[in-house]
């Protein structure tokens, strides 16, 4: 009987090894180990044996069962592995075999630049304020210390609209009227920047558009000085352009500030060494700034003995062009998706 069991075991392992599918293996397992299987038949005969022999044969039956189970287990793992490999192979996908798809869209270059600027100023403790693009003469000029017939009006070529009395309603020529609105809306202290779209009666060329964008800054508080203006612009300069770029202020004239200054930065192309873009000067003119003129504070009812402030402003579009080396401002407004999606 022991010999039978040996034969059974070796025949079984051979058959298991020969199984070609999981189904075969399952049938084989039932045939060998099931309730009506070969081993079960042997087990039934155990009752007729002597106790000693029964113990030995019983032990042998258990050994054979273990051997078969182990062989089935190994074979199952092998077959399952093969099946999984076959299935995965059938699923093979070439990741570069890619059809057209809609990728991300793109923020306009001016928006990207404006948001960067806003983020730097928010980091410096400024809020962001807005105002209308169609304005009255009072907000755009008079409140800014530019009375009617003031020669300085020639600094801005103004587009007027057909509304209200003639030449009283206009497309704002700068973001400065927002300063007036902010000072009317809010008591000092004021720390705010005012980005937005502005209009000039200019023919479009490589560096001019009748519509462009500025960002204006206004601080009004007790004890604000020219040194605060210089320090704030320097902090902005290194935050926005990088630590190697510095600022300088040169005397200038604007009706709404005094003292007034031009705000220059080290040329970002040559870092101040002198190149074609900066005309070998090492500096780029960025915008204007100065201490808020007492007449401007008076226009909104602020006492210039108590409050002082500074203001600054510069173009957004030019910064956008500079960052990406675009040499014609008109590119910004063609709305060609090939251009828009470059950035």
């Amino acid at each position, binding site marked *: 009987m022991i010999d039978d069991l040996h034969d059974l075991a070796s025949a079984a392992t051979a058959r298991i090894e020969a199984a070609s599918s999981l189904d075969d293996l399952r049938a084989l397992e039932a045939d060998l180990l099931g309730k009506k299987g070969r081993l079960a038949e042997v087990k039934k005969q155990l009752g007729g044996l002597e106790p000693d022999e029964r113990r030995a044969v019983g032990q042998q039956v258990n050994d054979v069962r273990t051997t078969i189970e182990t062989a089935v287990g190994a074979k199952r793992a092998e077959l399952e592995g093969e099946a999984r490999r076959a299935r995965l192979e059938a699923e093979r996908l070439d990741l570069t075999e890619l059809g057209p798809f809609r990728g991300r*869209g793109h923020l306009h270059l001016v928006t990207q630049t404006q948001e960067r600027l806003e983020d730097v100023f928010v980091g410096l*403790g400024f809020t962001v304020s807005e105002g209308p693009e169609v304005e009255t003469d009072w907000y755009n000029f008079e409140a800014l210390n530019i009375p009617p017939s003031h020669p300085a009006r020639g600094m801005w070529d103004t587009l007027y609209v057909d509304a209200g009395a003639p030449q009283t*309603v206009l497309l704002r020529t700068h973001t400065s009227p927002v300063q007036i609105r902010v000072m009317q809306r809010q008591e000092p202290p004021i720390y705010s920047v005012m980005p937005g779209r502005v209009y000039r009666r200019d023919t479009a060329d490589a560096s001019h558009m009748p519509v462009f964008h500025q960002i204006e800054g206004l601080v009004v508080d007790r004890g604000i000085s020219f040194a605060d203006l210089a320090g704030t612009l320097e902090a902005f300069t290194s935050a926005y352009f990088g630590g190697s770029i510095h600022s300088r202020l040169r*005397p200038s004239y604007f009706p709404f500030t005094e003292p007034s200054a031009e705000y220059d930065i080290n040329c970002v192309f040559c870092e101040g060494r002198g190149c074609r873009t900066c005309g070998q000067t090492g500096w780029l003119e960025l915008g204007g700034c100065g201490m808020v003129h007492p007449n401007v504070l008076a226009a909104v009812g602020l006492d210039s003995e108590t409050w002082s402030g500074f203001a600054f402003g510069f173009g957004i579009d030019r910064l956008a062009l500079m960052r990406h080396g675009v040499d014609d401002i008109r590119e910004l407004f063609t*709305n*060609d998706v090939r251009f828009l999606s470059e950035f």
Partner: protein
Amino acid sequence: MKVLLSWLREFAPFEGDPVELGEQMSDLGMAVESLDVLGGGLDGIVVARVLALRPHPNADKIQLVDVDTGDGEPLQICCGAFNMAVGDLVPLATLGTVMPGGMAIERRKMRGEWSNGMLCSGRELELGDDHSGILVLPPALADRLGAPFAEAMGIEADVLYDLEINPNRPDAMSVAGVARDLAARMGLPFTPLSPAVPEGGAAIAGRASVTIHDPELCGRFLVRILEGVQVGDSPEWLARRLTLLGMRPINSIVDISNYVMLELGQPNHTYDLDKVPGGELHVRWAREGETIRTLDDTVRTLRSTDGVIADRSDHAIGIAGVMGGASTEISASTRNVLLEMAWWAPMAIAISSAQLGLRSEASMRFERGADPEGLELAAQRFAELVAAGAPTSTLAAGTVVAEGDLPSREAIRVRTERVSALLGHPFTGEDVRRLLEPIGFVFDQAADGVDGEQLVRIPSFRFDTTTETDVIEEVARHHGYSRIGRRMPSGVHAGRLSERQRDRRTIRQVLVGLGLDEAMPMPFLAPGDLDRAGLGEIPPVTIANPLAAEESVLRTSLRAGLLKAIAYNESHRNEGAQLFEIGKVWSGHRIGPDGVPDEREQLCAVLAGVDAHDAVRTLRTLLSALAVPGIGIEQVAVPGLHPTRAGEVVATGGDGPPVRLGAVGEIDPSVLDDFGIAARVACLELDLDALLALPHGERPYAPISRYPSSDTDLAFEVADTVPAADVEATIRHSAGPRLVDLRLFDVYRGPGVAAAHRSLAYRLRFQAPDRTLTDEDVASARAAVIAAVEATHPARLRA
């Protein structure tokens, strides 16, 4: 304003590197726009005499010129100019010379004839703009043949600065003024002119008179008489200075007039005395419609805001401060000159010159405010220069002066503490005084008197300076902006974006994430654009002074501009452009009390090559990103949009009537035709002011149930006239609180469904927060939904 270094040096001993001097000028607010070194590059140019002129055998436009450079040997030159005669002295660029423009002179053949150098025009030597012929030199140089040209002509190396002068610097509109400012910065003494002119002949009294009829127009008017003048060409040095500073030499008297203006900043005018009856001048406002022929031989019609100088018979013979008249113009035959030096009210000249469209060198200076105390000096200087050129002339003794309203020049109280506080830098009273005295400010009190303040008298050439702040600016300027320290405002202030700004960024990010590109069309439209877009209902605001008709209308909607952008892209083979814009629109319907039209912020997206459902999905995604509840679509006609594929976006959440927020759908195909767009274009348009005024952004926490959920599917056959949204609303309403999800998973039209109907298949997911739902729970909810949908709509459950 251009200045020459040599001219500046006549007022102060400037030394050193011209570039560094330029940097000092820039730092004083007189920005150097260009710097040119002159008189360099003349090495190799010599004085030569024309010996013979011969035709070129092979060319008509070149002649052969034999010149002598001192050795008597004729040297053959090919020359393209024909203005010289035998015996003339001319500048010759010898072989090996590198011209100021960089060209190297070599021996070469021109049309078969050798040229051994080049004869030069004024422009080629950078001595002026004249390029009409060879520069013919004064005969006096005949004994200098072969001598270096620069030496023979007395041309010294010089530096020409072009300065940008700000409107608040009337003083810097002159060579002397620039020199004064720069000398103060460099710590050099400034020496004003002190012209000395002997007077002779009959005194002026009784031979000339000035009457100011309108004192607000003219503050001071001074005249002098110069007799026996000879009108001819100016000396070379004077003509050269004028030319370099951008003025054309005309004749000796006019040139001196311009020279004095450039040197002292005092514009002036000369009359031929013999053409001014009785030497009588009257200053008054012009009469409306009065005419005058001006020096440029143009008849100009004046308005009552122009000033004039009139003669005895009240005929205008000059426009005050802007341009003289032709009738009394200096001519070659003029012998006696009536010289006018005046101070005009700056605003009057600004208005007059703007109105006449005449911006002259004179009006630019009067506008900023000339020096009313400088008239005598300027007249003396004028006479001195005339005398230098024409020794026979005489200056009549005495002056005639009339006075009108001059600006009051009260001393300004300057508080030292205020100076320090505004500039953020500690100044003493002594500092203030030390900085300002060299530029002519006069201090009446000892520095830092008892009250820490000083009374400062402003020089008459600083019309701009009238307030303490004006004075503080001068302190800052002369101290140097770069030497004021830098600090940050010390107060604590929180920087942040407003809710609106954050929402706007969210909208942009969502749209960009959905694959849209942000466009930026011009806010201007051509008159027909809105009609073409089907948006003709709202009257637009128009521009009063547009540059072009195509840019004369302000948009009432972003749609027209974006459709143009789609058309542009399609015509450049950029198919399927998906664009959006956030921008302002204006309506002529609503004009505020101050005349300002209603301005609203709009969002518009146009999606080429997709259908209305894409626009609706875009809308839904945006609304979910902004957390705006209660927004629906009413499929009604929207101007410019597709009649059967568009509707209004409305807010139904609030208590009041539904608020219209915009439109969604597709562009009307006939509009697309008008814009030349072939693709289908979906569109979403939202009034952001209205949308973001709604309560939004609230996202309360809803606990997630830990119990299993159960799904049930329902398909209804519904008439096409019933919006799916209505069926959905009924389902939500009737399903009870355990409905946690509802989705339309299939829409079917075809066999098995009645005509003009479709099958809408919904999957409903039920879940309770506190227990596992039983089959009975789901079954009763399902029954309620079926009953409600069938009762509310022409709909029936499909088997």
